[in-house]
């Protein structure tokens, strides 16, 4: 800051900034104490009342003190990362830290910080700001080098200003519970301070917070302790300090102030809030009045700003004052009422308000005085809100204020101009100040500078009160409105004449518009959602008032004209209106009309790019199933070319995900549409954001095609894949050639490059050119673009939310490029760099979990360089110090197919984290790698090891091939797998028992190592890789096929292999794994096991009489379930009769994904229960019910059985009995706060039983106040649609719901409607694989172990 004499040393209402620390006086002692405390404890929590100067103490006290060298620390320089929590604490902290730690990518910081605890300290240590002077390397440095390093080093201060925002924003704190994010940020702050103290690091954490929130701090773990350890309550200023606050700034700047004025000001200060802001503001005004400090500030000036009465002045000044006052315009004179220090602010604001239109003339703007004052009033009403009975600040954009003002002749520019006077230098009552933002835009966020203005400007206080009164009337009105809407807009809920007149008057006076209503809709909705909801409310409100008025029209008319005059005319009109109303209602209620309307609504929603993409694609699929629309019609209606492709892709993926190869026609159409649309792309290389979107589109497309080809390997799909690869190649070549500035989407760049390489889309020349341009090993003079984009240590997150892995895009790509070019050394050199800059991340690239070198191996294979693979693997294994056997084990572990492709549409999990080439690889490729694996095994000198690994490899390959054949519906030749199993058995026989039984360690759950006999790897009757790329959850994710068990049974080997209890236990494990996969087939790319094989297994186990040794409940439940699917009740009963109900606990207490696995067990048990009921096996059914001790589960079971029976069209009193029992058990639930999923089930069953208004009402009562009642409502819509009650189904949609919710409800309606239609052959598979989460029959199980 250049300090000129004309700069006012008094800041007015706003806090002191760091720049203004020059004039921050009166707190020297406090600053010193706080600084010492911070120096000692590395942490300080500054608390104090509003307006006590906490922020000033930090920004104009502690920080300048530290920078000046008065806070003892390690380095001379200081980095200050300050943030306010606002509604996005994590984002704000990350942004500030990224800037201070000089990290270009803010999201990297966010990802790193998301791990909590030492994450922030680690980032600081890794940043250029830190130099470890205790480190050996430092000690050995030359003095000059030490100086250089120290010069770049800096201590770090983290400031969380206005910490109370953690409590005042619902995003951070809701119903007394902090959000995850709020907890994370607090954890980071506290841990950072703790570690800094422990390790003597130069990091300091400062928090400021209003003291009235101190009690709520207990909600954060560790925070009360930290406050106890180092709190600083900002003291009130004593008399001497107040004197400094008043006099010192004047003295410092060379201005003068009389002692009598100082004493007068101190004398006039009133105990309570706002002391300092009011004083500062008055001083600021006095300084201005004293010719901007040129005259000695005295009582005269104090009187001139409205601080004291003129007649109280010393006699020599009275005349001067009166002369001056007499020259003022009358309306300004009127502002000088009740002079006093407390009133200076009021006087000032009133002057601005009264003089606003005159000041606009200066800006050459013509706004009438009335308009100007209306703008000011509306703006300030918008900028305040009542919170817990207190008027507080409320930030709002100029655009929003203009919209609420809603005057066609006043655009945001005019509104902005009228407010300028409050932002001018010297009148800084509104932010942003004019000197910071000269011209406001519609998106400028306005904020009152300090809340003391609200408390001290009488007009504003009154406006806030009026606005609050308006708001409370609105709440009252809304309550009536809601009741009316909720009743289905029933006439009986219309307003009575008294309230009607009252609310009409209010409505006409306030003239609420969507923006006004939107401001009171809660902050959890985004702007668009709020607007939509507000518009709906407003439309409803208008209709409500109109219809209420209509209801009372006669009364009003009679009141106005008298009864006789109107009687005759009225009769005729009423008759006509009534007849047409009945006809319309009938038409509306016809299902066809509803379906047509649903289609219109769906298309509107589908065309809204802001809604969840996956949901839109599913809604399209449902419309297609109903044959209500066509793919071309949908795509036609979308305007944006990129959105068209995305939608075509989305439809294709949704259909393939569930239907795999059917409906073939629709799948082919969607694929063809996407491909042809993409051919027409004109890629915008000059627009980095668009370019990135285009790349993302081709990459998504690659995933779709990979999945489609996996299920249906036709030449056409292969051709499309190659074409897309060429497309990718063209993009890549152009990007490298043009090097577009600002393009930095390295993730999509590298994925596209990978696609191109995997399909040989580059010519050898092009490959060489790419390598020469990209590779720093070849090209020493890289362009700036290359250097900045592909730094050696730059990593890209491949995956979502820090899942997936971090990798260096360039060097990974280089390794692949060299592989494609057949250059082993180059490939290894690139990997060498990767490893050098590798860091241990969550999933750890190039460490144990996700070894990308296996991707490179696949590139060698696909580019016809299989001959070079050995050299690569040897070289790589040398670097990594692993064996080739281990390398191939990892590679094959990555070849397990998981269905994550559709998730690219939802952007969840870790899209593309897997290797699509290997996952969806053809048998030939997988076979090749198994062969390479065995080649590596052959190198072993230990015959036992050799034979054992060979046995396992043949078994695994056989199962993999069997699995691929099962799910990909290809022609399956059991002979291939059987031949491999035969070899496997042969090699296994050669292994000595000693070697087989030796205890080895396997990675069971992530880092958990389990010690098991070696033969576990073989006897587990499925693929049990030592290496699992997905980590922890893989423990139960080993099921692929039953074919190996089937082989053993058919070849009479079963008993030989599974004679001992510990061997049989492995079968039990396998059943559990099967359970994890069977009901979520679409997710895991698994099928239900071949029922005949499963039946054979049961028969064999029965024969062996092993059921006392292992738990076979799952086996019986599945066999019963499959029998029911085929409507074979007798067979099902035969299995269910073998159940050991007392052992149900085992299958209801899984720890991995318990909500999923245990609920699936519960569903299977529900099927058994229903079967017993249906077949009048009352005792067995009762036994099952009695095995559940919680009423909530019993209630669920009853409701489930009722609905099952209704689906089978069983019309028996038993259904009603079941529903009654469910209702009774529901009432027995003791803890009403615990989860009660039974209520949802009961509601669905009630509506299914009788789709009447009464049932719907009862169902609504059942789910009332339940946390997930919206989901239940969706299922109710589905049940009504299932009963052909489409009108009712759509009529129970709540009003004021978001588009996303509408989308979801419409899908439910269509799904229910289709469920009751005759099944269509080509959609059977699609229906079978419907997402697990959408299953109607899903029965949430409530844990009974507590």
């Amino acid at each position, binding site marked *: 800051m250049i300090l000129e004499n004309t700069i006012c040393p008094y800041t007015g209402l706003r806090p002191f900034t760091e720049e203004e620390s020059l004039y921050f006086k009166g707190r020297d002692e406090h600053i010193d104490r706080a600084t010492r405390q911070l120096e000692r404890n590395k942490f300080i929590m500054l608390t104090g009342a509003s307006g006590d100067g906490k922020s000033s103490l930090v920004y104009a006290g502690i920080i300048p003190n530290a920078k000046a*060298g008065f806070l003892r620390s390690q*380095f001379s320089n200081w980095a200050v990362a300050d943030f306010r929590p606002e509604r996005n604490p994590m984002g704000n902290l990350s942004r500030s830290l990224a800037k201070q730690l000089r990290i270009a990518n803010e999201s990297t910081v966010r990802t790193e910080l998301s791990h909590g605890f030492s994450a922030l300290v680690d980032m600081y240590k890794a940043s250029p700001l830190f130099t470890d002077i205790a480190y050996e390397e430092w000690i050995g440095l030359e003095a000059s080098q030490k100086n250089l390093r120290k010069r770049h080093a800096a201590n770090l201060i983290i400031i969380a200003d206005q910490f109370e925002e953690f409590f005042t924003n619902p995003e951070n704190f809701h119903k007394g519970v902090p959000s995850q994010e709020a907890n994370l940020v607090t954890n980071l702050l506290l841990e950072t301070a703790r570690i800094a103290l422990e390790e003597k690091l130069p990091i300091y954490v400062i928090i400021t917070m209003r003291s009235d929130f101190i009690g709520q701090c207990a909600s954060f773990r560790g925070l009360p302790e930290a406050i106890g350890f180092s709190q600083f309550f900002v003291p009130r200023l004593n008399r001497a300090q107040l004197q400094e606050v008043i006099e010192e700034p004047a003295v410092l700047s060379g201005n003068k102030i009389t002692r*009598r004025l100082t004493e007068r000001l101190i004398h006039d200060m009133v105990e309570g809030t706002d002391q300092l802001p009011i004083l500062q503001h008055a001083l600021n005004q006095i300084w201005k009045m004293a010719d901007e400090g040129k005259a000695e500030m005295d009582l005269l000036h104090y009187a001139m700003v409205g601080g004291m009465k003129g007649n109280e002045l010393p006699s020599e000044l009275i005349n001067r004052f009166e002369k001056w006052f007499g020259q003022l315009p009358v309306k300004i004179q009127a502002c000088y009422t009740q002079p006093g220090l407390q009133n200076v602010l009021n006087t000032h604001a009133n002057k601005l308000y009264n003089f606003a239109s005159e000041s606009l003339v200066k800006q050459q703007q013509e706004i009438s005085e009335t308009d100007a004052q209306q703008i000011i009033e509306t703006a300030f009403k918008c900028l305040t809100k009542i919170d817990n009975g207190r008027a507080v600040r409320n930030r709002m954009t100029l655009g929003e204020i203009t919209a609420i003002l809603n005057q066609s002749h006043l655009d945001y520019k005019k509104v902005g101009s009228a407010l300028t006077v409050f932002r001018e230098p010297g009148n800084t009552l509104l932010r942003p100040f004019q000197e910071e933002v000269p011209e406001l835009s519609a998106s400028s966020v306005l904020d009152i500078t300090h809340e003391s203005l609200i408390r001290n400007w009488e007009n504003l206080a009154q406006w806030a009160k009026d606005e609050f009164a308006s708001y409370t009337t609105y709440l009252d009105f809304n309550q009536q409105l809601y009741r009316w809407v909720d009743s289905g807009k029933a006439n009986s809920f219309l307003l009575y004449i008294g309230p009607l007149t009252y609310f009409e008057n209010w409505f006409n006076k306030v003239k609420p518009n969507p923006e006004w209503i939107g401001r009171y809709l809660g902050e959890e909705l985004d702007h668009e959602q709020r607007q939509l909801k507000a518009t709906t409310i407003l439309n409803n409100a208008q209709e409500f008032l109109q219809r209420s008025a209509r209801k009372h029209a006669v009364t009003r008319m009679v009141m106005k004209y008298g009864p006789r005059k109107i009687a005759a005319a009225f009769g005729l009109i009423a008759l006509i209106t009534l007849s047409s109303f009945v006809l319309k209602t009938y038409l509306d209620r016809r299902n066809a009309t509803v379906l047509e309307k649903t289609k219109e609504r769906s298309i509107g929603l589908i065309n809204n790019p802001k809604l969840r993409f996956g949901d839109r694609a599913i809604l399209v699929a449902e419309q297609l199933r109903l044959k209500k629309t066509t793919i071309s019609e949908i795509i036609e209606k979308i305007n944006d070319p990129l959105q068209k492709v995305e939608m075509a892709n989305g439809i294709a993926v949704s259909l393939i995900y569930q239907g795999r190869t059917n409906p073939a026609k629709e799948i082919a159409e969607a694929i063809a549409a996407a491909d042809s649309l993409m051919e027409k792309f004109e890629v915008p290389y000059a627009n980095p954001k668009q370019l990135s979107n285009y790349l993302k589109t081709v990459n998504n497309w690659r995933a779709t095609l990979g999945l489609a080809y996996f299920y249906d390997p036709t030449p056409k799909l292969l051709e499309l894949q190659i074409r897309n690869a060429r497309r990718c190649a063209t993009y890549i070549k152009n990007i490298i050639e043009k090097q577009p500035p600002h393009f930095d989407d390295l993730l999509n760049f590298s994925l596209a490059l990978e696609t191109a390489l995997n399909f040989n889309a580059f010519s050898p020349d092009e490959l060489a050119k790419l390598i020469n341009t990209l590779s720093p090993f070849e090209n020493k003079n890289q362009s700036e673009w290359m250097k900045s984009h592909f730094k050696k240590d730059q990593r890209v997150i491949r995956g979502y939310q820090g899942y997936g892995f971090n990798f260096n895009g360039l060097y990974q790509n280089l390794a692949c490029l060299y592989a494609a070019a057949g250059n082993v050394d180059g490939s290894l050199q690139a990997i060498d760099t990767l490893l050098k800059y590798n860091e241990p991340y969550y999933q750890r690239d190039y460490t144990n979990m996700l070894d990308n070198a296996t991707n490179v191996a696949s590139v060698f294979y696909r580019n016809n360089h299989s001959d070079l693979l050995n050299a690569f693997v040897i070289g790589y294994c040398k670097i990594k110090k692993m064996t080739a056997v281990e390398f191939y084990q990892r590679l094959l572990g990555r070849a397990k197919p998981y269905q994550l492709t559709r998730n690219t549409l939802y952007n969840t999990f870790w899209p593309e984290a897997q290797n699509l080439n290997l996952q969806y690889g053809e048998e030939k490729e997988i076979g090749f790698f198994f062969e390479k694996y065995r080649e590596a095994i052959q190198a072993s000198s230990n015959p036992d090891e050799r034979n054992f690994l060979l046995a396992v490899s043949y078994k695994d390959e056989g199962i993999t091939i069997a699995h691929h054949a099962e799910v990909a519906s290809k022609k399956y030749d059991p002979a291939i797998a059987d031949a491999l199993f035969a070899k496997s058995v042969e090699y296994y026989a050669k292994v000595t028992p000693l070697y087989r039984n030796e205890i080895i360690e396997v990675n069971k759950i992530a880092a958990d190592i389990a010690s098991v006999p070696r033969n576990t790897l073989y006897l587990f009757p499925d693929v049990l890789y030592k290496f699992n790329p997905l980590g922890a959850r893989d423990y139960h994710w080993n099921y692929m096929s039953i074919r190996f068990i089937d082989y053993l049974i058919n070849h009479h080997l079963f008993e030989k292999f599974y004679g001992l209890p510990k061997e049989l236990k492995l079968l039990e494990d396998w059943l559990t794994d099967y359970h994890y996969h069977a009901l979520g087939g679409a997710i895991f790319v698994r099928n239900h096991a071949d029922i005949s094989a499963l039946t054979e297994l049961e028969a064999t186990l029965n024969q062996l009489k092993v059921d006392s040794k292992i738990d076979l409940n799952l086996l019986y439940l599945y066999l019963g379930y499959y029998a029911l699917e085929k409507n074979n009740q007798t067979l099902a009963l035969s299995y269910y009769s073998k159940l050991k109900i007392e052992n149900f606990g085992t299958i209801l207490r899984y720890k991995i994904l318990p909500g999923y696995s245990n609920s699936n067990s519960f569903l299977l048990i529900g099927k058994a229960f229903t079967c017993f009921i249906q077949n009048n096996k009352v005792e067995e059914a009762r036994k099952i019910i009695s095995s559940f001790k919680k009423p909530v589960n019993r209630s669920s079971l009853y409701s489930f059985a009722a609905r099952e029976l209704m689906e089978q069209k069983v019309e028996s009193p038993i259904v009603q009995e079941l529903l009654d029992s469910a209702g009774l058990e529901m009432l027995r639930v003791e803890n009403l706060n615990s989860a009660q999923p039974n209520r949802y089930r009961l509601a669905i069953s009630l509506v299914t039983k009788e789709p009447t208004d009464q049932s719907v009402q009862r169902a609504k009562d059942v789910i009332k106040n339940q946390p997930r009642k919206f989901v239940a409502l969706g299922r109710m819509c589905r049940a009504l649609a299932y009963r052909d009650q489409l009108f009712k189904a759509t009529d129970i949609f709540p009003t004021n719901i978001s588009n996303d919710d509408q989308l979801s409800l419409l899908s439910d309606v269509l799904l229910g409607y289709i469920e009751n239609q005759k099944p269509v052959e080509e959609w059977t598979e699609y229906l079978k694989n419907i997402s697990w989460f959408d299953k109607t029959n899903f029965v949430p199980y409530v844990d009974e172990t507590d």
Partner: protein
Amino acid sequence: MISRVLPIRIHEVEPDDVRLLERELGGILRSIDFIYHDAGVNRPLRSKDDDLSGAQTRLLFRNQINKVANSVKEVISGIKIAHKSEPKTIASHSLTVDKPLPAASFTTSLPPGIKVHVIDRAKPSIFLAWTSSELKAKREELALVLQKAGFNVLPSIDCPADDEEFKTRVAEDLKKCSCSLHILGNEFGRRFEIQSDISFPQHQLNEVKKIIEHASSEFQCFIWNVNNPAKVVNPDQQEFVRSIRNHITRNMMFSNSSGAMQLVDDIRVVMMKEEAALFESKDTDIFFIFNQQDESDAGHITDLISEYYPIETLNIMPDGEESYRERSSQQISKSKLAVVYFKYAADWAIPFVKQIWKEIGGASSPTQIMLVGENDPASNASRVFKAPKVVSSIVPKEEVPEEVKKVYVKVVHL
């Protein structure tokens, strides 16, 4: 040990040290002054002093003196260790000799034999003025509160009935006090028989004002207005209060505290300020401050400057043990020019200058501050700070000493 104190003074001894010596001697330090005024005395010896022009032809007295000076310093340090348990402090607002004198005089050498009058800040005496009769009870209550708060309250007798005796008593007791408190209510109070327009309370205040008007007076006057708004205020009293409020001068406080407790607390805050530590500082021409980052460059520059002017230096280290703020501001007030130099440490220099500027009184500081930075690195070009009493310049490294000299000459001739 005392007998070993040198009777020859060859060095300007710190006032604090003088007091220390005097306490040891049990009397006044009488010495034969032999103060060698030349550049560089107040600094350790340098080997290259012997290479200065003319050094070959004359005795290097300076070296000899320096050696002795250093010995004196060591002796004093020895005494200091022995008295470690008695830290020396000064009251920051007091104008007693404990405080460094304003730099305008440019000397702090103590004339021998000065006796120091120290106010007993542990228990100051307050003159609690007699009031109008309506407030008598209030005065008595206040007297008790003041005593509990650690004050000696005078006068301790009832108000004399006789005019003259009243005046005498007031004059006598005021002499014993360092502050006064006057309680004003609705009534004007008893008037003098001869001058009936003056009341007893008014007279006391007038006497106090006379004391305060004396330029060097540190006497504090507190006035407490406790009028009862339910009752009518005597017009004379109204005029009296109004006149006070409109003529408040330094060391006067007009309070409307809501209770005796708050009032006495305010008085105590003013009268019993915490004492700040005194740091070693010397009269010097130039006080040169830099950051550790620029240590080597600064050393070179100060070597050159010290050829011409006595110079004190201060190296601000990030992890230093010193209270740099207090040390710098005390030394600046004893220097003719304070130079803040930077090369790499611009991020430190600007905040430092701002804080120090504020500390030493900004525009009203007698000492000029010079902020001088090198023009390399280039980013320094914009690192200037403009404020009254601050000269800011960015120059090439080799020109820094010249630039300092130029500013120094200008300052001295001002």
